């Protein structure tokens, strides 16, 4: 009985926060890819998924239902909040620059070790240490 009451008050609460729930889902799946997969390129894709979830986290609270995009015109009165848009705009471009830097490192690693799997690289390192 009490469980039913709790769920009936929790459900509208969850609906009010659905944007956050989507964000959390994306964030956690990005995190999972980064932790669980050994392939460096896959890890970078996971990182960019994580990053897009942060975009969503910033943009979603700025929206007002019934408002329009923050481009001023005389026929509208309500606008979304422009500040998160600016922050995320810069974040996207910095994000692609860092993604490219990470890919570059992966390519160099591949040239040095012949693989981009994390555990194989570690094994090769250990082998080299033992031989010394």
């Amino acid at each position, binding site marked *: 009985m009490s469980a039913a009451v709790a769920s009936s008050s929790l459900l509208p609460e969850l609906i009010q926060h659905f944007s956050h729930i989507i964000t959390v889902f994306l964030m956690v799946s990005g995190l999972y890819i980064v932790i669980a997969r050994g392939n460096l390129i896959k890890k970078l894709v996971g990182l960019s998924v994580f990053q897009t979830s942060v975009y969503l986290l910033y943009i979603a609270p700025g929206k007002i239902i019934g408002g329009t*995009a923050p*481009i001023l015109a005389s026929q509208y009165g309500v606008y979304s909040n422009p500040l998160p848009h600016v922050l995320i*705009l*810069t974040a*996207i*471009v910095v994000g*692609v*620059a860092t993604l*490219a830097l990470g*890919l*570059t490192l992966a*390519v160099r690693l591949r040239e040095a070790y012949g693989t981009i799997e994390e555990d194989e690289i570690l094994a090769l390192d250990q082998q080299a240490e033992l031989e010394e």
Partner: protein
Amino acid sequence: MKHDIVLRVVGKLLIPFILLFALYVQFHGDFGPGGGFQAGVIFAAGIVFHALIFGLDHTRTLVPDRLVETMMAAGVLLYAGVGVAGLLLGGNYLDYFVLDQDRIHGQHRGIFWVEVGVAITVCGVMLKIFYMFASRDRDRDRDRDRDRDGEGM
């Protein structure tokens, strides 16, 4: 991909419009969605498209490496230069109000040049990264004479 006539013709038709659209996004950024970042990326994407269709060497003669590297630095310097210009004209660093007699007009001028600087840097960096990856690719192909990976893509 170089010998596909459909791609070549469609690419030739589309690329000028992509570049034009980038310029529109750049200069219309005050009134509609758009601005330096988007314009730089779209411009770079147009040139990358050209490289994919007509081959990297062809594109490199059109947009040489030196130009791209200069663009990377020139954009940042232009941005910082706008700040210094404000300083020289008696305002604070990056203070656009002093760039013109009319305060509002000074703002417009500052925003314009800053956006141009951003676009140049972003476009230069994107192109440089692409060139780096693509030329690496070709070197390796030459080294190993098209081994198993070469035909996979």
